[in-house]
């Protein structure tokens, strides 16, 4: 985790990582998800919002692989488009969290004193609020929608990254090579950029993967409550909400979007675990 930064080629990663089942499965699922999301931009089996009432609530068939919903819309097409939506929301949310959290954590570690105190109190404080509760507050107060969902999820990623960055950076500041840089008269910012951040990059990448999975779950939850992506844009959570009311008529509608969420989160978690094993062999002992 805190080894001196060293350039590792992709080839070396591949050679070391290909024997790890969790990494390979996670990578495959994640890549598939991204491929589906990209594909949905240019092609889906049916237009995602094409209403075809006569063909409503069909079970899976050759024409509609995953069946149709209450408006006769193709479920597969909507799940594909939902992937795009989930990825976009989660990616931006994690980006906000890391983009603000990492500098805050690095600052706290570099300056100590009251700056650190403020950052850490803010952290403690956010832990007292269930993230979803606050997300529900934000989205419903500022109006439901994808943008507000992103902000709500993003805000609660900030302390996660701030805490992680501070903890890792603090121990790095005690290391000899950082002390050497300080003795050489480098400024704190310079040291942070040149020595601290490169050394915690792998740690951050692992955490981002895990937060990405959590963001997918959070987005699905908000959409399920009607606070995330708004109709007619497809989202997995919203599809499950609609499916629930039709549970006695077409139970299969409640299966596929949920499977999509689960597979995505599972894939990302496996990828995160695999990356951690790969980048930090010492932790493998306990896993």
């Amino acid at each position, binding site marked *: 985790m805190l080894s001196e930064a060293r350039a590792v080629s992709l080839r070396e990663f591949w050679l070391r990582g290909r024997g790890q089942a969790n990494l390979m499965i996670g990578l495959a699922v994640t890549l598939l998800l991204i491929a589906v999301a990209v594909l949905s931009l240019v092609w889906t089996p049916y237009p995602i919002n094409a209403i075809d009432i006569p063909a409503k609530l069909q079970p899976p068939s050759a024409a509609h692989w995953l069946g149709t919903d209450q408006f006769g819309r193709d479920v597969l097409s909507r799940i594909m488009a939902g992937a795009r939506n989930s990825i976009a929301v989660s990616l931006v949310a994690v980006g906000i969290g890391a983009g603000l959290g990492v500098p805050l954590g690095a600052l706290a570690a570099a300056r100590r004193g009251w700056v650190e105190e403020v950052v850490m109190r803010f952290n403690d404080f956010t832990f*007292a609020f269930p993230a979803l509760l606050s997300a529900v507050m934000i989205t419903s107060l500022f109006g439901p929608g994808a943008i507000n969902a992103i902000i709500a999820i993003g805000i609660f990623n900030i302390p996660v990254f701030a805490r992680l960055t501070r903890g890792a950076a603090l121990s790095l500041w005690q290391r000899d090579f950082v002390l050497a840089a300080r003795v050489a008269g480098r400024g704190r910012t310079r040291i942070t950029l040149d020595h601290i951040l490169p050394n915690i990059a792998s740690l951050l990448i692992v955490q981002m993967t895990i937060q990405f999975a959590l963001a997918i779950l959070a987005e699905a939850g908000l959409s399920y409550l009607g606070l995330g992506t708004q109709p007619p844009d497809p989202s997995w959570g919203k599809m499950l909400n609609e499916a*629930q009311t039709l549970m006695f008529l077409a139970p299969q509608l409640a299966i596929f979007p949920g499977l999509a969420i*689960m597979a995505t989160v599972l894939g990302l978690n496996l990828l995160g675990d695999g990356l951690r094993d790969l980048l930090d062999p010492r932790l493998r002992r306990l896993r």
Partner: protein
Amino acid sequence: MAVFFLQRLTTLFITLLVASLLVFLVMEVLPGDPAAVILGVNAREDTLAALRAEMGLDRSAWERYFLWLGGLLTGDLGRSYTYGVTVWELVAERIGLSLPLALMAIVLSTVMAIPLGVLAAARRNKASDVGVMGFTQLGIAIPNFWFAILLILLFAVHWQILPAGGFAGWDAGFWPALKTLLLPAVALALPQAAILARVTRSSVLETLGEDYVRTARAKGLTRRAALWRHAVRNALIPVVTIMGLQFSFLLAGTIIIENVFYLPGLGRLIFQAIAQRDLIVVKDLVILLAASVVVVNFLVDLLYAVLDPRLRGGGHAL
């Protein structure tokens, strides 16, 4: 020891104070006049003014904040303008559902997770370990509301042995009421149990490598006896920390799960209150939930002292 808890207590109060300020501010920046929301767009100006005065909206923001804070401290939570009853009454009515539900979920997840985690650690890398770890990966990946829907599909739609939603109420008798809470509690407990089982496993693996476990084995204790008598209790210290942190996830979970099962609990109340702009209710509930999270984590700190005599103080033998 005493110093430690005084510090924790101070942090607790400061956290809640900041929380109250933040919640109040968020509510302040909201557009819209609550009085107009209640009376509708066609209300006459003098009735509006009268209501504003009654609700204290004509005072300054600071004044209203301190009035609210004073109310919180004296137990006067104010009155809901959509339900027309005091917030206390609303909370009292719904906590009878939410608290038992949360307790059931905690108990379920604990009795599932700790034995599974210990088992996985004791049989490290054997089939049962791999099985438990696979189960926990699934448990973490399943969104709890989808798991809830699957439970409904199975137990209510397919087998029809448990209700699909709604709460029978404790007046209907203990078992009928418990039956309606069973599926929601399972849905809440599963993701918690998955995380807790993983934490338990790695914690037990760590303590199993400790010298005192080897000492116990050298005394003649079997693997199993050394595990349960010496490794598990030490391993529980970090597990309890995670359980404390999970409490807030559990509260968040109730917002969704109570919606899935149409349960009239606190989670659904807060969701509805936000939707209806019932600001007093929202403010009070958010503070109450935050307070419960903070207090639970404070209690977890106290529990450490029970588990770990090193924190209990007591003088040196010298």
